[in-house]
């Protein structure tokens, strides 16, 4: 093996190492992404899925309209939506709302609701004490029922916020449930 051959081999191995490293970096972007979401609060699922102990401290002088939305991830198979579309609330007071779901898929199903909130900045002030989104929901064939969400809006929420949209997307999670 000449000096050049050895140099070529060493550099090739180094470059393959870099390639392997960037393959790993692609996967490292996943936790990194979640960290950045946590810091900036944008698209942060963990804040929306955290169970919070409520301390009531109502501010009767402020009223915020909460809008509820329900979507189904793939069309057909489910009826899903809020029982009441909007509710007016005072920050610092505990409220309860209900969503209904009806399994029309013709099979026993497990569904997972994934919450989203708009404007995204509000996520840090919108606390849930109870939510059907905290765990997978099992439905028998043709079963229908209402599911509760209990929430409290932090009175420290910025003054300009007068309307919050809480949206849930209902996913078929039958294949994922065993792994969660």
């Amino acid at each position, binding site marked *: 093996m000449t000096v050049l051959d050895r140099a070529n081999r060493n550099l090739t191995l180094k470059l393959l190492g870099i390639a392997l490293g960037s393959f790993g970096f692609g996967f490292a972007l996943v936790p990194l*992404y979640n960290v950045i979401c946590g810091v900036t609060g944008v698209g942060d699922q963990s804040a929306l899925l955290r169970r919070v102990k409520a301390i009531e401290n109502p501010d009767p002088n402020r009223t915020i309209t909460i809008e509820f939305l329900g979507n189904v991830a793939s069309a057909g198979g489910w009826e899903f939506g809020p029982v009441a579309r909007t509710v007016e609330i005072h920050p610092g007071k505990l409220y309860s709302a209900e969503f209904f779901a009806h399994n029309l898929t013709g099979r026993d199903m497990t569904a997972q609701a994934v919450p989203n909130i708009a404007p995204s900045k509000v996520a840090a002030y919108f606390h849930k004490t109870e939510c059907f989104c905290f765990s997978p929901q099992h439905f028998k064939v043709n079963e229908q029922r209402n599911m509760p969400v209990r929430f409290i809006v932090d009175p420290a929420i910025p003054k300009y916020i007068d309307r919050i949209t809480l949206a849930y997307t209902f996913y078929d999670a039958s294949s994922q449930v065993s792994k969660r």
Partner: protein
Amino acid sequence: MAEHSVAAAHDHDHKPHGWRRWVYATNHKDIGTMYLVFACLMFFIGGAMAMVIRAELFKPGMQLVDPQLFNSMTTMHALIMIFGAVMPAWTGLANWMIPMQVGAPEMALPRLINFSFWILPFAFTLLLATLFVPGGAPAGGWTMYPPLVLQNGASFPMLIFAVHMMGASSILGAINVVVTILNMRAPGMTLLRMPLFVWTWLITAYLLIAVMPVLAGAVTMLLTDHFFGTTFFTAAGGGDPVMFQHIFWFFGHPEVYILILPAFGIVSEIIPTFSRKPLFGYEAMVYATASIAFLSFIVWAHHMFVVGMPLAAQLFFMLSTMLIAIPTGVKVFNWTATMWKGSLSFEPPMLFALAFLFLFTIGGFSGLMLAIVPADYQYQDTYFVVAHFHYVLVPGAIFGIMAGVYYWLPKWVGNMYHMGLAKWHFWLSAIFVNVLFFPQHFLGLAGMPRRIPDYAVQFTDWNMVSSIGGFGFGLSQLLFPILIYMCVKSGKPVKVNKAWEGAHGLEWELPSPAPYHSWQTPPSDAIIAKGAFH
């Protein structure tokens, strides 16, 4: 190598004959030729798909294809042109030219590059086979966004494995380029004496090694999401489809510079040759290329301003994107300054290089418009975006490749091509490419969305113009292989080493046609110094 000294023998290179020469190819010129022929074939397959798209869009309403097939055509057109035509064409030019330009006899890793070439026919057979599987070819866009890409039936795993293979091929090709450039240069060929094509390819190769594996990772995550129950991008399991877009474009933005940087190098070779002046600001060109490569890593989210991100992030990505205009402006300035007071002549390579300079800059300007966040909210996903990236890729990358082929073809085959026909090819291409893509700016600003097979009637006129331009452009490209065939078979022999009187660089010190093995004895320092700009 001893037999090389017997120069009297007619075929003193001991080429292997028949199919073995190609299947077992380790010669840098044979490999380069195979890459270029493959790229040309893919260019016409991808081009045929573009013709289907333009035919469907010739008038409003549904005429020729159903929407699913239309979307397959846009998706496959992009994948084939990017990974099958442009990238292999660059690798082919690199294999042909880099040893000749740095004074080396061969590429550093000939067997590896043989492997990396022969992956490609398999990868693209797999990709093209998706046209015939249940559910049809991938139709969710070349960006492969979940969840749409996951809903494509049998083609999905084929798409993923094809992308894996293309990625592996281009990583190996890039490693070969870096090792050749860093280890195989002739003594005296210092880094700052290297021709700019070599410089831009060195930087491109580093980009490839850094980001192609990230794409491989992203599509692997798609694969495990689909088949093994992971939830990287599945919201039901706590994943986030937007994360795919971030990872994809972390690859995707450097990728657009992978497609264009070697063209910068080629144009930097051609403009001095036909201006009969040294390149203006050689060192600045090198630093500008490196700056562009660095910046390409921190601008990716400008491809996804509307998915939702904090204001600070939008500002960051907007401003970092605009920053790229500075090194690019340096380059455009230097090319123009090279021509200043030069004695210009307008042979086909120069014509393509000038069209590149002019039209790529237009594409750069529309890119600046798209970088502005509030404007992007209006322009995103319209034909304005389509016009933008086709301006930088067709008269950018493709014209760069054609300029390079017209520049070096006489050196490769030892014959000159038909100058008049090549000028016809240029003028037809240059006119029709504008007829094809310029109206798409208007369509986009008027709000026509991309990736939709039908449109509202007010968009009809400009779509007809664009389609006519498309058919004209597509047909005039047929001249290109005809010209090359004629040149190889019956071109007028080039008797001198320098096919172009103003040419600089080591490749022009070799005889025409270039010998099978390039620099068996390294060139002298004087020859190297004569060819260098610095």
